[in-house]
């Protein structure tokens, strides 16, 4: 079991570390323990952070956006000496962060309304054939083999290609995007790499936006999402260049390792539970509840909030500037809300999960994520033989901001 660079955890109540090896591999027991003993843990590693573990606490905090601001959503903060004022980039260029995810109302409200129609059911269904074709092509490449890495050869390849299409950026950039996003979110303890990754993302997107502006000014019709934001600048003076850049950063980052993680976790679950794999193959009509159950049981995303004023929350003295880690994955394992939460029941009828968050920051891309997850799983099980996870010791889980398998050896049973 690996320990994080900050050393082993001896006390989860007062000194938790979400990058500790035990937490990455099996956070469920730690949450159960904390829910009974605490239920809000605290740690001074990586700044002063609170970690709620109950559904009630987490959804309450999510709804109190005046006390718990979204202006700092990173679970692993940047180190203080790092700022965006470096070569070629004016610090003001990122003045808004990446709205709407890093914004509070009113900035959050109107920036969110701009992008929501791009992820409506109707719009998302237009990306379905493309997603299917991506999945099919990946499967064709390995369908003759007996083993694959389900994480890197399949799950990882899907969402990044779909979002590249939506943003109108070339598919040959997908490996680079994946590296940037992993350096930014997954390997956040390596602060130099992380800083370089966000710098690369910013410089790349500044270039893309400049290029699109020139094409649009020449009268070219572009129907990708970044071009849409640029063209909306004519209708709304509030959409300045920093808003376009910040929103583009969000759109690039948010849909890559999150959905990849969910697809990987789904494959892991099916590879570990042959009865569930068989049931899903024989009863495709349960796919909708199966998807929601996978999202509940293996929720990938934890976001942060920053406390705006000293407050006491459920007995905890939270000080202005401290962070709260929005442990949606733990909320979804709360036995007060979910019957037998540790049991993954693909037919679970009542499942009020908050894998996509709760309140005004509900994941804007949720419909896209669900569609990708559904198509990825159904295409996989429809076109390939049954499969198993041979050896759990070979599986590598990432965690922190986004939890999911990063190495997932699957063996096909011919």
């Amino acid at each position, binding site marked *: 079991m690996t320990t994080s660079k900050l050393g082993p955890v001896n006390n989860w109540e007062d000194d938790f570390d979400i990058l500790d090896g035990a937490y990455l591999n099996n956070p469920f027991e730690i949450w159960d323990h904390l829910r009974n003993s605490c239920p809000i843990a605290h740690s001074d590693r990586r700044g002063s952070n609170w970690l709620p573990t109950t559904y009630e606490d987490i*959804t309450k905090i999510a709804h109190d956006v005046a006390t718990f601001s979204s202006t700092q959503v990173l679970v692993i903060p940047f180190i203080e000496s790092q700022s965006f004022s470096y070569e070629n980039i004016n610090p003001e260029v990122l003045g808004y962060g990446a709205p709407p995810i890093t914004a509070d109302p009113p900035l959050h409200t109107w920036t969110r*309304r701009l992008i*929501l*129609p791009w*992820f*409506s*059911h*109707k719009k998302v269904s237009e990306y379905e054939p493309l997603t299917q074709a991506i999945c099919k092509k990946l499967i064709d490449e390995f369908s003759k083999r007996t083993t694959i890495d389900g994480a890197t050869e399949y799950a990882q390849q899907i969402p990044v290609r779909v979002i590249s299409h939506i943003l109108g950026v070339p598919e040959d950039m997908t490996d680079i995007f994946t590296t940037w996003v992993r350096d930014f979110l997954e390997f956040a303890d390596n602060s130099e790499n992380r800083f370089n990754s966000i710098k690369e993302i910013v410089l790349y997107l500044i270039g893309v936006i400049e290029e699109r502006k020139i094409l649009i000014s020449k009268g070219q019709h572009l129907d990708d999402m970044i071009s849409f934001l640029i063209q909306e600048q004519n209708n709304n003076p509030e959409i300045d260049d920093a808003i376009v850049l910040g929103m583009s950063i969000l759109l690039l980052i948010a849909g890559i390792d999150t959905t990849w993680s969910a697809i990987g976790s789904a494959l892991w679950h099916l590879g570990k539970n042959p009865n569930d794999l068989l049931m899903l193959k024989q009863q495709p009509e349960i796919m*909708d509840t199966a998807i*929601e159950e996978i999202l509940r049981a293996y929720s990938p995303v934890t976001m942060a909030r920053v406390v705006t004023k000293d407050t006491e929350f459920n007995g905890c003295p939270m000080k202005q500037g401290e962070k709260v880690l929005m442990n949606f994955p733990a909320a979804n394992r709360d036995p007060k809300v979910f019957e037998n939460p540790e049991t993954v029941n693909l037919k679970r*009828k*009542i*499942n*009020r*999960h*908050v894998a*996509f968050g*709760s*309140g*005004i920051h*509900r994941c804007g891309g*949720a*419909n896209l994520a*669900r569609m990708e997850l559904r198509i990825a799983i159904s295409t996989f099980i429809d076109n390939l033989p049954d499969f198993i996870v041979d050896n759990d010791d070979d599986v590598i889980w990432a965690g922190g901001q986004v939890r999911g398998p990063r190495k997932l050896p699957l063996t096909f049973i011919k």
Partner: protein
Amino acid sequence: MKIRVDESKCQGHSRCYIIAPELFEVDDYGYSHSRFETDIPADLEEKARLACENCPEFAIEIAD
């Protein structure tokens, strides 16, 4: 049975629409609205209860 979506609570999770598209419609922003102002068809009552019990924002109201 009558159903209503509390627009001040709905955050567009779409859970009700996925469970019961016969009862709910979603707009371009993802917000859900009931298709029925009057009593819903009796054979959809079970689906209405399920939609209500799966809403993460407790936004669906049912009146028998």
